[in-house]
Structures are given as C-alpha cells and as structure tokens.
C-alpha cells in the first residue's frame, strides 16, 4: 500500500485533528453498476446518434501509436471535422484509445484512467500489440490481449495503423454506437470480478483501490 493511501491524522491550521482514511474518504467503494437503457428504442437511438457525433478522446498515449494520433489533430487529417477531439482529463473524455503496446506498469494507469471516465465510454485498441501482442509477443512486461483487462469495443489493425485507418476506425465505431452495440462499460460492470482478477494477475503490486471512480 502506498503511504498516501494509509490512514493518517491530519492537523488543520486551527489546531484541530481529524482522521483521514483515503480509501474510504477519497474513493468510491461501490463497484460500478450496470446502466440499462432508460428510454424506449426510438429515444435511445436518438441518444446513440448524438453520442456517435461526439467522440472525445482521452489524451493518453501508451505506446508508439500515440505518434499516429498527433497528425489527426493537424490540418492535414483534421479529425475534428468528424466530431472527434482530444481532451486532457478522463472526466471530459468518452473514448479511450489504447495506442499500442501496454506494459503492466502502464496498464495500471490505463485502468485508473478508464475507471475515472464517465458513462457512456468506449475503448478502442490500436495496433496489433493490443490484439495479440504483436512484436512484443514474448516480452516479460507487456500484455498480449487487451480485452482480458478492459472491455474493447473496436480494434484497429496495423503496426502502426496510418491516420487514415484511424479515421476509418472512428467511422466504424460510430456505426457500432448508432447500432447500440458499444456496451463496454456495462460489460465491465457485469464482469467486474473477472476483469479485476485478470488485472490483479498481471499487476503484482496492486496499491490502489479496487475501483477508482
């Protein structure tokens, strides 16, 4: 356990003392719950159409694929015309692109970031590393199969995929969202114990709460 997660006594400038238990006070203890569709099909379809028009990506580059995302922000490829943009914090984003190989150390940060994102949220695996390990198939610290640890809605193949492939991937993701097939967050909640068991199997020093909401 990290020192900042341990119980401690905090003294205020006024001289008061109170106990802080970070795991209880700073984090939500409850596991995520499944969020069923709230309205009928027609309204949900409208919502899904609206969701598909606003893909806000978390600016978190995990591997070499992060380099392929940079040209998309520039005038040459200009992903913004498709309603795609990058945001600096997980709270403002709804699409998490795992851009390339994911070492176990980065996986820990990726899980924390994913859990802090708000519903509805989508995960796209970019490049062959996220699909079957790619050239890191025999690495001692790189995961080989991303969907064991996070619910993946779409994979984009390539090593690395060109920006055009990414733009095509966004269009495919939009189709999936409009069809109501991007239920990754609900899948994560449903199989929460399975995902946590898989994550803890590769992350040996689990020094964070089980759910980082």
């Amino acid at each position, binding site marked *: 356990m990290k020192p900042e997660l341990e119980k401690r006594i905090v003294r205020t400038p006024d001289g008061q003392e109170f106990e802080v238990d970070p795991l209880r006070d700073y984090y939500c203890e409850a596991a995520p719950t499944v969020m069923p569709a709230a309205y009928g099909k027609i309204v949900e379809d409208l919502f899904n159409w609206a969701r598909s028009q606003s893909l806000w990506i978390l600016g978190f580059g995990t591997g070499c694929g992060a380099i392929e995302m940079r040209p998309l922000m520039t005038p040459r490829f200009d992903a913004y015309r498709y309603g795609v943009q990058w945001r600096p914090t997980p709270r403002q984003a709804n699409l998490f692109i795992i851009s390339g190989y994911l070492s*176990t*150390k980065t996986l*820990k940060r990726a899980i924390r970031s994913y859990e802090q994102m708000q519903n509805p949220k989508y995960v796209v695996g970019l490049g062959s590393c996220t*699909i*079957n*390990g790619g050239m890191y*198939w*025999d*690495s*001692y*610290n*790189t*995961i*080989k*199969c991303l969907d*064991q640890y996070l619910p993946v809605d779409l994979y984009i193949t390539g090593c690395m995929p060109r920006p055009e492939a990414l733009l095509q991937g966004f269009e495919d993701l939009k189709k999936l969202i409009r069809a109501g097939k991007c239920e990754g967050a609900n899948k994560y909640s449903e199989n929460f114990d399975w995902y946590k068991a*898989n994550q803890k*199997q*590769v*992350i*040996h*020093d*689990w020094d964070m709460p089980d759910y980082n909401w």
Partner: protein
Amino acid sequence: MRELYQRLQSLFVLGELTEQRANLFFITVEKDRLRPLITHLRDREGLRHLVLLTAVDWLEEGQFQLTYLLCDRLTRRDLGLRVMLDRANPVMESIHDLWPTAATYQRELREMFGIDFPGSPRLDEEFILEGWNTTPPYRRDFDTLEYARSQYAERAGRETRDPETHMRAQLYPESN
C-alpha cells in the same frame, strides 16, 4: 591511446587489453582496483565523461561483466573498463560519488541484473519494473518466453492448413 595505456601500466595493475579501434580501447581490471584507476582517469587523464555503465551476463563462465565506458571529448577517445564479478555474489563498489549519474545506472543494474552496489542512493527503490517478484529479467537464466506464456493471456492464432491436402480433400473426397 597507446601511450595512455603505457602510462597507466606503470601506475596500475592492468589486465587484458582489447584494441577495438584507434580511439577505443577496453581494459580489464580487477574488481578492487577499479576505483583508483577510474579516479585517476577522470582527474588526470581528461576522461571526464561517463558514457555508460552496463553489464553482460556470462552465464557459462558464471560471471557478470561490468563495462564502464569513459570518454574524453577534447581528444575524441573512449576507454572502456571491464570488471568481472562473481555471478553467485554480484557486489560492486558504487561510483556514484565520482559521477552522480552512475547512481541511475546502478539502480537499473540492480533491478535488471540483480547486481548490488552498496551505498548507492535510492538503490532499493523500484526503477522501471513494478512489483517484480522473480529472477531479474535481464539475467540469461530468466526464460522470457516461458514467463510471458505463463503470465499473459494469449489469443489463439489463425488456423492454417496445408493447401495441397486441403484442396484434395475438398475436390476429391473419395480419393482419401
């Protein structure tokens, strides 16, 4: 480089010499004799830059080889010092007081090879790996492939068939 070597030879006990290039020599030295030599090279001979400190695992000989590569920027020459350590008990004197950057190399070697440098700052903190609990990964007796297979889930590969037998079975099922 030659006259440097001859000068050093009159002052220190040196081991084997390897002349890689006209401006790159390697000298093997005993473990306990490294420190006076490397201090002399830094302060008197102008080899002020520690380029790298790295290790090689000679599994068959039961030894680790440490390489201290020094550089003289003015005369453009490099000198590598090789130190052989016992693989069963790999302990080496720290040189972090001569070059502060050496502490970083020593942390890496400690984590990746399990070579100990007593007294080096932040040596026991995690450097790159987190929660590593088996053999240090750069040691050659660490089986990377086996570890990756046992640790990380794999996706089943594509099914492949021999084209000739497959097509024969498809087109002429009675011939089999």
